[in-house]
């Protein structure tokens, strides 16, 4: 595309480029509208929420937020927030640990059935979660773990999210082998060379795994809906659920104030780590 500009060779006004930017900016505005609407609505007084195209509220209704902070079903937002953080934090630690261990074996070590096992691991990326959902529920139910956080955290310590194993394998394959060979000559066994040589170099892939795990776990609704039923164990996402059935429009402001609170960590994570996220996503598809 850029080549045509040089072969034509005219230094006229870059209409094409301006049009491209204008188009992208326009698309961006449309795409950001739902977010702007969310923030605006969370600050609107009850009577302006519906039937108003105007994004700007006539006055800022901060009481929506103080109502939201009281939480749902006598559970405060602070409690919901710490529940969400506990689950997401546990999931992050579990995924980073177990997926990097499995990835190292697949990327660097030799063992029998490596080929078929790797193929199986890749196939589980495509496996619909629902195919294993009910027996998993039964297992956790038998273990007395329903309505605890274990069913949400424990699987992450068992490398069940093959997508991340694959992501880390892809990254490790790009590391020079000479480093491990040097480490071996210096007397490092596979464990030491994993922890001291490979793992530090894999940091970008581990960060990507950590951030994706955090965001996906934070956003997760289905698993939490199934496993948690006491309000004091609810996460922010589950608490928003109680607004799903409610048809009363009066709670609109607080509902969207709470939605903003639930979305805020993801937005912050995205702003801070967007490079890792975008590149992690790009790498997952291209080298495959």
């Amino acid at each position, binding site marked *: 595309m850029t080549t045509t500009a040089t072969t034509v060779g005219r230094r006229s006004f870059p209409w094409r480029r301006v049009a491209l930017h204008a*188009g*992208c900016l326009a698309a961006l505005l449309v795409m*950001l509208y739902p*977010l702007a609407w969310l923030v605006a609505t969370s600050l609107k007084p009850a009577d302006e929420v519906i039937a108003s195209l105007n994004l700007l509220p006539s006055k800022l209704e901060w009481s929506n937020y103080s109502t939201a902070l009281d939480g749902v079903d006598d559970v405060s937002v602070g409690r919901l927030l710490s529940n969400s953080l506990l689950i997401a934090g546990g999931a992050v630690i579990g995924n980073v640990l177990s997926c990097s261990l499995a990835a190292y074996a697949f990327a660097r070590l030799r063992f029998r059935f490596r080929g078929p096992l790797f193929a199986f691991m890749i196939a589980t990326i495509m496996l619909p979660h629902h195919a294993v959902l009910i*027996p998993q529920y039964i297992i956790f139910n038998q273990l007395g773990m329903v309505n605890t956080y274990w069913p949400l955290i424990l699987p992450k310590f068992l*490398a069940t999210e093959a997508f991340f194993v694959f992501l880390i394998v892809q990254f490790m394959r790009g590391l020079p082998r000479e480093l491990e060979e040097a480490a071996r000559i210096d007397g490092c066994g596979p464990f030491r060379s994993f922890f001291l040589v490979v793992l530090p170099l894999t940091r970008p892939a581990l960060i990507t795994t950590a951030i994706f795990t955090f965001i996906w776990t934070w956003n997760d609704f289905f698993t939490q809906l199934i496993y948690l039923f006491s309000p004091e164990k609810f996460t922010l996402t589950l608490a928003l659920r109680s607004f799903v059935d409610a048809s009363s429009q009066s709670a609109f402001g607080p509902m969207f104030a709470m939605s903003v609170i639930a979305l805020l960590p993801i937005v912050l994570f995205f702003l801070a780590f967007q490079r890792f996220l975008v590149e992690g996503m790009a790498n997952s598809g*291209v080298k495959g």
Partner: protein
Amino acid sequence: MTTTDIPAKPARAKSPAPPRQQRGRIRREGAAWVFLSPWVLGAVVLTLLPMAVSLYLSFTDYDLFNAPRWVGLRNYVQMFTEDPRYWRSVGATLMYVVIAVPLQLALALAVALALKSMKRGKSFYRSAFYAPSLLGASMSIALVWRAVFNDGGTVDNLLSDIGIHTGGWVNKPGWALLAVALLTVWQFGAPMVIFLAGLQQIPVELYEAASVDGASRKRQFISITLPMLSPVLFFNLVLQTIQAFQVFTPAFAVSGGKGGPADSTLFYTLYLYDRGFVASHMGYASAMAWVLLLAIGAVTAVLFRTSRSWVFYANEGER
């Protein structure tokens, strides 16, 4: 392993070496299984075993409290012949997949093409367009969607201004499905990022050679960009299709968990949840899960099969 045996003469390594090497190999093989152990445990206990159990349960009547009762093919027969809601959930899901996936991929490709030639601002746009892919999976955005497409919501108001009175999308069967599909299309950022990375790997020389030969931009797109991009296109198509079959949260939010209006957003997973966890028909839900597994497997297989005729791998062609 240890440095002491390095000075040993290579000639000597004939007869005493094998046991030592073998021991080393076994130790290394052992180490590999230690690294793999969490994954193996997870694969057996949380994937393979549940798949087998779910297959077994699909032939039973099971409510989680009483022991499973073998009913043979009863669940499947009921599903296919006596349950109109089941077929409505299949129809809604297929309709949604057919609308959402092509629209999403087309938009992703179009934006990736636009960004590709950009010198300034590319990484900014790339990140900005990607953002909805992360935010859109949340309940927060699903609730926004319901409000914006509701009776009196922004979309309804805008359409009324130009003379189209929808009375809100959320409570009209066909429109509610479309609203959910648009939420998926809105999240075109993830495939777009993958497209863009794929586009950047196409060698510039190909385009230079083509423009020397006088190929038009359209010609270049058809003869260079599309074939070179076809593996990435295929990857995105498979991944997005599989994900679309499993969509849950937006349909739950838009329909208040019921799949309405008139079962138009009763997606497969929503009905599975309803049968298994609301109505406690775990056997029936397991049968549904297995049909979903087979259906996704079949769709993937068909995609792989057709891919032979349109997916082009550069290193194969060079030979």
